[in-house]
């Protein structure tokens, strides 16, 4: 029975959470209140763990919630239920895009969309910059300046130089970042 409730809740989340992993959190909060699978405090832990492990946050959250509710089977069922609506919707859109690719209006739309999406992605990246370069979120400009993490900025600048000049696979820089973090934050 728990499986059916999980399928229902995660298809709903997958269908209505628009715009990335963080959008799943309000839905999971509702689940926490509605069932006795996990409580709000567990949810906070789940968010922290999902952010600190590989994989899309929304998928991590679904696996976690499903596992807490009904073990391994629950984790698999919840994750598949979460991605099921996207799978169907995207296939319909991809099929239509192939069919209407030559359509003038579709082409015109993408002329506007492509640069706009670059703008949206730039905005989305500001969030990760804020948590990376500032030790806390400030309220005034003075506070923001006070919270600025100079050490982080130097490491970032060196990594960026490496990324732009050496053109190695991204995972190399992730590995260097992890080691640099452990060494610098532990000993300096």
């Amino acid at each position, binding site marked *: 029975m728990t499986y059916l409730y999980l399928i229902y809740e995660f298809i709903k989340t*997958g269908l*209505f959470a*628009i*715009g990335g992993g*963080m959008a799943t959190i309000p839905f999971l909060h509702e689940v926490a209140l509605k069932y006795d699978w996990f409580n709000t405090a567990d949810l906070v*832990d789940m968010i922290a763990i*999902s*952010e*600190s492990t*590989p*994989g*899309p*946050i*929304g*998928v*991590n959250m679904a*696996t*976690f919630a499903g*596992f807490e509710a009904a073990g*391994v089977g629950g984790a698999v069922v919840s*994750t*598949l239920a979460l*991605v099921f609506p*996207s*799978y169907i919707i*995207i*296939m319909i*859109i991809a099929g239509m*895009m192939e069919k209407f690719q030559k359509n*003038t209006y579709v082409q*015109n*739309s*993408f*002329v*506007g*969309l*492509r*640069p*706009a*999406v*670059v*703008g*949206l992605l730039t*905005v989305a*990246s*500001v969030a*990760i910059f804020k948590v*990376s*370069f500032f030790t806390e979120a400030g309220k005034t400009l003075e506070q923001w300046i006070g919270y600025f993490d100079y050490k*982080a900025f130097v*490491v*970032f600048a060196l*990594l*960026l130089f490496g990324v732009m000049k050496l053109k190695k696979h991204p995972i190399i*820089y992730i590995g260097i*970042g*992890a080691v640099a*973090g*452990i060494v610098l*934050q532990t000993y300096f």
Partner: protein
Amino acid sequence: MRELLELYTSFFKIGIMTFGGGMAMLPMLQAEVVENKHWATEDELLNYFAVGQCTPGIIAVNTATFVGFKEKKAIGALASTLGVVSPSIVIIMVIAAFMGNISEYPVVQNALWGIRLAACALIVSSIIKLFKSGVKDVFGLFMFLFAFMIAGVFGLSSVIVVISAIVFGNVYRIIKDKNKKKEETE
């Protein structure tokens, strides 16, 4: 069969190397899907992200479905979607079952501090690449700034940006075509 396995393993790799949300996946997608496998061009990747912004679901999963469908239809989409979620299922279950809240260990926090900085550097480089392929003229620059203002400065929904971009794109092209015809007849 070999192609399906390739889709699965490529997206498994993308899933396992992505720390943090959809933005962190962008550099991995560029490296694997565009540069390594040539399954999509930089422009197509932007198209997928555009659709992903205004459709439900997690952007990582949506992009995986798109690329898989383009290569091998429904079964390809299934392979790539399962690939991108497989690492999460395994890793999260191991952590949930045996380790408790790993984000409380100092060594994990310190490693993540550095990983986030690497992700920032990779994202900057990715956005520069996308800017080069997505913003090609004055109209493109206008759309880029428009989207940045609406979503970043005014904090409005990206759905509004997407709808306006479709309208602006069409109006711009129609006006441009008319002017061209006028010049030709004169």
